[in-house]
C-alpha cells in the first residue's frame, strides 16, 4: 500500500515546503531588522494590488511558465536541464534574426515566425548536450551548465560585433519594425485597467497554450507515455521497444524549444530588440517552478504566478523598504528550490509516518468493531 494518499503527495507536501521556504525567508527579513509582515504586505500589494502590478506579475510569470515547462518536460524523462538560461538566450538570437531579417507585414505572421525561430534556436542549443547524453553518456547537468556560459559569451560577442547599431555603444540590436510589435495588455485588456507601461503582452497566451500542449503531450499522447516510461526506467523502456536516444533527443529538443520561446515574451513582446542578459535568471527560476509545480502544467502555472509575484513584489519592496535588497527574491527562490527539491524528504518522512499511524489507528478501530 502507498504510505500516503495521493492528494497529500501532490498538494500537501509542496504546500508545506513553500510555507517553510517563506517562513525562513521571513526570518531572514527579521534578522536584517525589518518587519516580515510589512515586507509581505508590500510585496502582495505590489504584485496584485493594481493593474500595474498585475501587468508586471503576469509578464514575469509568462517567462517562468516557459522556463518552468522546459525543466518540467525534461524532468519527466529524468533529465535535469539546467541549460534553460542559455537556451532562452539563444532563442532570443533566433527571434532577433528573423524579425530583423524579414520585413513582416503584420505581427500575427511575425509571431508565428518568431515562435518557430525561438523554439528552433533554443532546441538547437539543447541538442548538443542531449546528443552527448544519449550517445556518450556525458552528464547533461554539466554539459548544459557549460552551454549556458558558452551561450553568454557567444551572445556578448554577437551583440558587440554583429548586432550593435553603428555609432551606438550599447551592446544591443536595432529596434524591430513597428509592424512586428505584439499587442500589449493595454491593447487587448485595457478595459481591465492595464496601462501602456505594463509589459504584459500577447506572449502570455502563447505560454498558456504551451501549458495545454505540454499537458496533452505528457499525459495523453504515446510520446508522452514513452517519455514518462523512459524517465522511470531506461531498461524497461528498451524492453518495451522505446528508443532511449530518440526519447532523450526529442525531450531535450522540446525542453530547449520551450525555454527558447521565453524570448517571444521578452525580446519580441517587451524589449522589441535583442539586449544583453535579457534572460535575467529566468532559466534558473524555471527549476524552482518545475520542482514546486511537481512538473505538472497546472502546478507550473501556479508556481510561475508565485514567482512572478515575487519578482514584481521584490521590485516594489526595493522602493518601499530600501534596507531590503532586491536579491531577497533570489533568497526566496533558493529556499523554494531547497525545500521542495533537495529537502523533500525532510517534509515527506514525518508526513508519511503521520499518515501511517493515522491509518494504523483507523484499521485498529475497524478490526475491533466486528469482534465486539
Amino acid at each position, binding site marked *: 500500500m502507498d504510505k500516503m494518499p495521493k492528494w497529500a503527495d501532490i498538494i500537501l507536501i509542496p504546500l508545506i515546503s513553500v510555507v517553510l521556504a517563506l517562513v525562513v525567508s521571513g526570518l531572514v527579513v527579521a534578522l536584517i531588522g525589518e518587519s516580515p509582515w510589512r515586507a509581505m504586505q508590500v510585496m502582495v500589494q505590489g504584485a496584485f494590488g493594481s493593474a500595474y502590478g498585475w501587468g508586471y506579475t503576469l509578464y514575469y510569470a509568462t517567462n517562468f511558465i516557459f522556463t518552468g515547462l522546459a525543466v518540467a518536460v525534461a524532468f519527466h524523462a529524468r533529465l535535469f536541464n539546467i541549460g534553460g538560461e542559455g537556451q532562452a538566450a539563444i532563442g532570443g538570437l533566433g527571434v532577433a534574426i528573423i524579425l530583423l531579417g524579414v520585413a513582416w507585414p503584420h505581427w500575427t505572421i511575425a509571431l508565428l515566425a518568431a515562435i518557430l525561430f525561438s523554439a528552433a534556436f533554443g532546441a538547437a542549443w539543447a541538442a548538443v548536450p542531449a546528443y552527448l547524453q544519449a550517445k556518450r553518456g556525458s552528464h547533461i547537468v554539466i554539459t548544459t551548465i557549460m552551454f549556458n556560459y558558452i551561450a553568454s559569451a557567444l551572445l556578448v560577442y554577437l551583440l558587440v560585433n554583429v548586432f550593435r547599431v553603428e555609432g551606438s555603444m550599447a551592446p544591443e540590436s536595432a529596434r524591430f519594425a513597428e509592424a512586428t510589435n505584439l499587442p500589449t495588455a493595454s491593447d487587448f485588456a485595457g478595459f481591465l485597467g492595464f496601462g501602456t507601461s505594463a509589459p504584459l503582452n500577447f506572449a502570455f497566451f502563447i505560454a498558456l497554450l504551451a501549458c495545454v500542449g505540454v499537458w496533452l503531450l505528457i499525459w*495523453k499522447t*504515446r510520446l508522452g507515455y*514513452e517519455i514518462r516510461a523512459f524517465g522511470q526506467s531506461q531498461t524497461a523502456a528498451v524492453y518495451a521497444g522505446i528508443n532511449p536516444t530518440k526519447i532523450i533527443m526529442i525531450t531535450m529538443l522540446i525542453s530547449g524549444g520551450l525555454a527558447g520561446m521565453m524570448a517571444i515574451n521578452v525580446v519580441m513582446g517587451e524589449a522589441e530588440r535583442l539586449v544583453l542578459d535579457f534572460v535575467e535568471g529566468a532559466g534558473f527560476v524555471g527549476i524552482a517552478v518545475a520542482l514546486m509545480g511537481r512538473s505538472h502544467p497546472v502546478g507550473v502555472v501556479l508556481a510561475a504566478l508565485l514567482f512572478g509575484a515575487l519578482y514584481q513584489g521584490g521590485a516594489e519592496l526595493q522602493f518601499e523598504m530600501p534596507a531590503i535588497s532586491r536579491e531577497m527574491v533570489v533568497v526566496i527562490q533558493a529556499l523554494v528550490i531547497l525545500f521542495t527539491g533537495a529537502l523533500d524528504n525532510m517534509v515527506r518522512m514525518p508526513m508519511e509516518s503521520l499518515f501511517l499511524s493515522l491509518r494504523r489507528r483507523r484499521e485498529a478501530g475497524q478490526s475491533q468493531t466486528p469482534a465486539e
Partner: protein
Amino acid sequence: MTTPAPAIELKGISKAFGPVQANKDISMSVARGTIHGIVGENGAGKSTLMSILYGFYKADRGEIFINGKPTPIPDSQAAIRAGIGMVHQHFKLVENFTVVENVILGAEDGALLTPSIAKARKLLTELSEEYGLKVDPDAIIEDLSVGHQQRVEILKQLYRHADILILDEPTGVLTPSEADQLFRILERLKEEGKTIILITHKLREIMEITDTVSVMRRGEMTNTVRTADTSPAELAEMMVGRKVLLRVEKAPAQPGDVVLKVDNLRVVRGGVERLKGVSFEIRAGEILGIAGVAGNGQTELLEVLGGMIPAQGGSVTLHNEAIDLTGKHSDGQTRRARGIGHVPEDRQDEGLIMAFEAWENVAFGYHKDPKFNSGMLMNHAAIKADCADKMARYDVRPPNPRLPARNFSGGNQQKIVVAREMDRAPDLLLVGQPTRGVDIGAIEFIHSQIIALRDQGKAILLVSVELDEIMGLSDRIAVMFDGKLMGERLPSETNENELGLLMAGVTDTRTEGAA
C-alpha cells in the same frame, strides 16, 4: 556433563518495516561447529532476520545470545566484534580496488595504509592455504570471476576472525562445480570449528550440506528439524503451509511446423562476445528449455530475440521469414507486432514500470496498438477496461487497475506481465525466469498458463536457472555455457547430474548427441 552454549541463540526477534511485519517473534538456536540451513519462500523474512543478526537492521524486540552471552548488536561493527561475518547475495566489494584493499577495508591496522597492506598480504596467503581459498591478493576485483569474488568475501570475513559465517543464497551465481567447491570449503570451515548459517531456497543444497534446518514462512519460523530426519517434500510443505506438487502435470507435446529458427547467432556486448554462434529451432506446440548458470548468455539470447539489443552475426527466422537483427529497423515493438511475446527475466527493472499504475503497465510495449489509441491520443478508458478484464482472468489481486505496480506482491506483478504477454497468444513466447521471487501459489498458476499456451500450438523458449523448472516444463532441454549451446537432451533421457556437468562446460557426458 554440561552441553556447551549454542554459538547463536535468538529469542523473540520481531521487526516491522512500515506496515509490513517482516519478522514475528523468532527464536532459533544453532550449535557451534555445525551448518544450519534456513529455507523459506521469497519475502518469508530470511534476509531480514540475518540482517538483524549482522547489525544491519535493529530488531524492534528480542534478544541475541552469542556463545551463551547476551550480545546486543546495534550495528555491523558490533556484529564483527562478536565474531559474525556475512557473505551477501550481492557481493559488497569495491570493484576497482584490489583484493587486499577490499579485505582490509574497515579492519585496517592503524591510520597508514602501507603497513596494513603488507601485513594483510601475508595473512591472506596463510588463510588461503589453510582453507584452500586461492586468490591473488593484488588482483582487481572486477577482473575476477564470480566464484573468486565470493572467495574474497569469505576471506574478508576470516580476516576479521569471524567464527560465525552467514551466507545468503551463495550458489545463485555459481556453476554446479563452483558450488561443489564452495561446499568443500564450508565443510573445511566447519571442521575448524566455525559455525555456518546457509540461507537458500534450494532444498537440494539443504539436504546435501546442512546439519539442521529451520523453515520460515510469512515472517515466522515455523519449524526447526535435523536435516537427516526430513525430506525435500516435507520441507516444501512446511515452507508453503500445504501439500505442494513438486512436479508439473502435462500431456506429451504435439510439435508442429518450425516457428523459430536461430542460426549461428552472435552477440557482442561491452566488448565481450556473449553469444558465440547459437543455433536451434522451436516448433509449434513445444517448449524448449534453456538451462545454465546465470551470465552464460541466456540474458543476451532473450534480449536479442526480444529486440532489445542488436546481434553482430547470424540469422533468425520466424515462420521462415527473416527478422532484422541490426536494431536499425526493429525493436521490442516490431517484435511484438510479429507475434513474439516476451516475459523478461527481471520484472521490476524491465517488465514493469513500478511507478505506473497497473492499467498503464498493461499497455506497456503495446501502447501503439490501435485498440489502445484513438487518433493522436491514447484511449485511457479502453486500456483500463482491458486491464480490468485481464486482472479478472489472470487472478491478479487486488483487481484494481489504478494501483501502482510496486504495490502488488511479486507474484501478482508477474501475473500482470504474464497476462500482458500471453493473452495475445503470441506465436512465439520468450520467457525468462518466470517464477523468480514468486510465491508457490503463483508459480503453479504461471506454469499451468505456459503449458496451456503450448497446448494451443504456440512455440515457447523458456530460460531459467532453476533446473527443477526446466526439467518440469520443457519438452526439450538445451544447456547454455559460455555463450554456446552444449547440446540438447530430452527431459526423459537426462538427469540433473548430466545437466549439471553440461552447465559447467563438460561435453563428453554421452557419445551421441540428441538433436
